[in-house]
């Protein structure tokens, strides 16, 4: 396999994992904070957070282009800006993946029985302990579903990534990019193995996680007796 293709595979994996981590932490935190907070304009904030889900990737990409460019706010912090680096690909994938974690976590937190959280409080637990020992484990199956979707979305990110990270083989070229440009050039011998690898990998990850979470939940939702 050509060196650039191997690089694209490894880069895609690294970008998707990092972007999923960023989206998971920020998505869960936002979901928890907004589930409780009451302030004017809350609905508008929630709508903004979900925007990347409904906007065309090119619109998200254009927004990020302005944000990450030399003259944007990020350009002030990082001299030269982040455009056409693999960091930009991580940011684009994280932005696209964020709403999937956020939305699933939001729904999962809403399902958590407030009495169980209150029981923990009366048993001496502070808010942080309540969150990590009761709220998060009870909401985990829903959050995990969001994380799996986010990972899949990050791995497949194309439009926004192309606009902010470009398609530089050996530097910012991810697998979806490599497949698109190989197919466009009629180079099916490069495209086909990549497609097969992505298919197999995605299937294994999603199948494995679902299986694991199914068992994890079944552990404590056995048939109730009497």
């Amino acid at each position, binding site marked *: 396999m050509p060196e650039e293709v191997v690089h694209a595979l490894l880069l895609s994996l690294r970008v998707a994992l990092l972007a999923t981590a960023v989206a998971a932490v920020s998505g869960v935190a936002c979901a928890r904070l907004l589930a409780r907070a009451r302030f004017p304009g809350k609905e508008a904030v929630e709508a903004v957070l979900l925007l990347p889900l409904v906007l065309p990737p090119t619109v998200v990409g254009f927004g990020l282009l302005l944000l990450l460019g030399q003259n944007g706010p990020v350009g002030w912090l990082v001299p030269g800006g982040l455009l056409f680096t693999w960091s930009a690909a991580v940011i684009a994938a994280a932005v696209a993946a964020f709403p999937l974690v956020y939305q699933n976590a939001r729904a999962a937190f809403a399902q958590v*029985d407030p*009495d*169980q959280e*209150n*029981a*923990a*409080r*009366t*048993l*001496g*637990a*502070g808010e942080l*302990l309540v969150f990590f*020992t*009761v709220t998060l*484990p*009870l909401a985990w199956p829903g959050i995990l579903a969001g994380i799996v979707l986010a990972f899949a979305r990050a791995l497949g990110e194309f439009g926004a990534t192309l606009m902010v990270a470009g398609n530089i083989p050996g530097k910012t070229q991810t697998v979806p990019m490599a497949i698109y440009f190989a197919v466009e050039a009629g180079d099916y011998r490069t495209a086909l193995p990549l497609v097969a690898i992505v298919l197999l990998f995605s299937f294994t990850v999603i199948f494995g996680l679902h299986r694991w979470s199914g068992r994890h939940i079944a*552990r*404590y*939702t*056995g*048939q*109730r*007796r*009497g």
Partner: protein
Amino acid sequence: MLVVEIEKRLPHFTLRANFTVPAGKLLALAGPSGSGKTTILECLAGLQRPDAGHITLEGQPLFAAAAGINLPAARRRVGFVFQAYALFEHLTVWENVLYGLWGLRGEEKEAGLRRAEGLMARFGIGHLRNRFPAQLSGGERQRVALIRALVRDPAVLLLDEPLAALDRGLREQLRQEIKELPAEWRIPVVLVTHCCCEERLATRVLRPVRSGGTVSWTA
């Protein structure tokens, strides 16, 4: 001694509670649903904040509107058995029972473990320690909730409709167990019920008095 004198404005009426419960005694709050019983318990536990008044336990203020004191639930040493038990569904029976010992060390933790062992044996559920709550019957769940509340050695015990979800035969048995609690633990116990049979457990029974837009629970 638990001293309660609070007022809380609810959407449809103003709730007033004014009573004392000495250690070793059981007070029953008996009234129809929607008369503020659970709200009173949650105010005692620190899960809701009254609008006015004070709550003291053994002379220590848990809540005092005038002085701006409102101890968080975690620091009140209140044992609370919720109506639907609120067992942690993702933890085993034994992990549920020991939850209140988080962060305790040394002798305190040892004493808590001994209490947990003793209570599990006494309530006859020692063999269930590795089960999850979803695998228990109603009576077993109730006992786990009660043990979990007692393991922390609470200074007051609050029971929200503890027998409501159980069938009749089981009720009689658990009623006897609850009846022995106040004297054995030498703490005040407050029980909330809408069923008159539970009142027989109590040293004293309070009923709500409705006048105008106010519901009062006054001794």
